[in-house]
């Protein structure tokens, strides 16, 4: 199958043989793919300028089983200029997609979310909000949507109550005075995340923990390298150990 002018993003590249690359791309219509970019590391390769992270591309490729072949790549718009912390958010998105999307599963809606999230990360808006919305969309687009407005017995979640949350059982209301070692979420947080609006820092922070715990489960508790590295880099800069997380 030959595909032409397919919108795509590069997620990861690794060296293959002397002068080629194996690239992971996220395409608008065909989901995540692995392609071989022959000669992409030669000095005059036509792929070189276009094959950059966080850059909208149009690609041509021929698809064969596991590994297709890239035949053309051009840059379709400016690279999203992610700097500092935002850049590592971008790497985090890429690692989620590489780790959790099956090859050849189409995710057109998720592709649009990915694009939007990069745009927001590149702008000077709050990155944590954009990330939470991406994580939520990512889970629902990959078949792990969260029920946040109803508790495990089917009752509407109350803003002034406290809940436990797990992907299997959903929100479980806690009786007053209940002591539990697990993370407790306010009904307000669950409803805020349900709507995708975060009225204050607390709901945003709790949403981060909730989404992280669900994603960690999906990753089978094998940690994300981009996150580990980000923490390590922060430590290098602050010269402190365990300053946070």
């Amino acid at each position, binding site marked *: 199958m030959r595909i032409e002018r397919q919108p795509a993003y590069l997620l990861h590249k690794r060296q293959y043989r002397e002068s080629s690359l194996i690239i992971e791309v996220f395409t608008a219509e065909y989901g995540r793919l692995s392609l071989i970019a022959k000669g992409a590391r030669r000095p005059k390769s036509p792929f070189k300028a276009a094959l950059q992270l966080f850059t909208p591309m149009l690609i041509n490729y021929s698809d064969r089983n596991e590994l297709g072949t890239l035949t053309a790549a051009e840059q379709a718009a400016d690279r999203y200029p992610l700097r500092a912390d935002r*850049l590592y958010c971008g790497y985090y998105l890429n690692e989620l997609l590489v780790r959790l999307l099956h090859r050849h599963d189409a995710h057109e809606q998720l592709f649009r979310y990915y694009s939007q999230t990069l745009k927001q990360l590149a702008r000077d808006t709050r990155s944590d909000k954009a990330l939470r919305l991406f994580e939520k969309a990512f889970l629902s687009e990959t078949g792990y949507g969260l029920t946040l407005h109803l508790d495990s017995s089917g009752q509407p979640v109350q803003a002034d109550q406290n809940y436990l949350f797990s992907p299997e059982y959903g929100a479980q209301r806690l009786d007053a005075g209940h002591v539990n070692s697990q993370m407790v979420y306010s009904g307000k947080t669950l409803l805020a995340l349900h709507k995708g609006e975060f009225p204050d820092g607390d709901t945003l922070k709790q949403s981060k923990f909730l989404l992280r715990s669900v994603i960690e489960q999906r990753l089978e508790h094998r940690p994300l*390298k981009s996150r580990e590295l980000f923490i390590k880099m922060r430590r290098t800069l602050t010269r402190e150990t365990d300053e946070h997380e």
Partner: protein
Amino acid sequence: MLETIALERLKKALCALPGVGPKTAQRMAFHLVGRDRGGARTLSEAITGALQSIRRCRRCNNFSETELCPVCSSPKRNAAQLCVVETQADLESIETSKAFSGTYFVLMGHLSPLDGIGPEELGLDRLQRLLDEENIEEVVMATNPTVEGDATADFIAQLVKQRGIRVTQLARGVPVGGELEYVDRNTLAGAFQGRKDL
């Protein structure tokens, strides 16, 4: 058929060379053992000798036969200027250009979060020590103009600035002899940002 085994071994070994596949390896092997045995001996001795004597410079990671490489130990080089490059090949290119008279630090790669290549893997603790122990006045970031190269440059720039040392980055522009029409958009954008008064 002992010689066949030896020949196979040689062919396999030659495949370790960049750009050499089984066919080329066979041609090389036949040439070395058949037509040019003297040359083969010289080559074999040169490889053994190089492996024994060449190591990495203690200060900058450059290839060296001594603890400090010729660049680091030369009194003609300005040790207050430190140029950070990704690879040995980048260092060689800059040396060929004779555009820089300071010293280097070779990272041997760039930050690559999805591959787990971070500050430790790039030997940044050594770079930090170098910044702390020597009188460096300027660090020139000469990493590649890619997302990964820029990420590496940004991170190192923070480490350098923390110490109150000046950081610069190579300008990005249109290649000499190149035609604007064929220059990619990022290069052009960079060239515009870095324009100079005439």
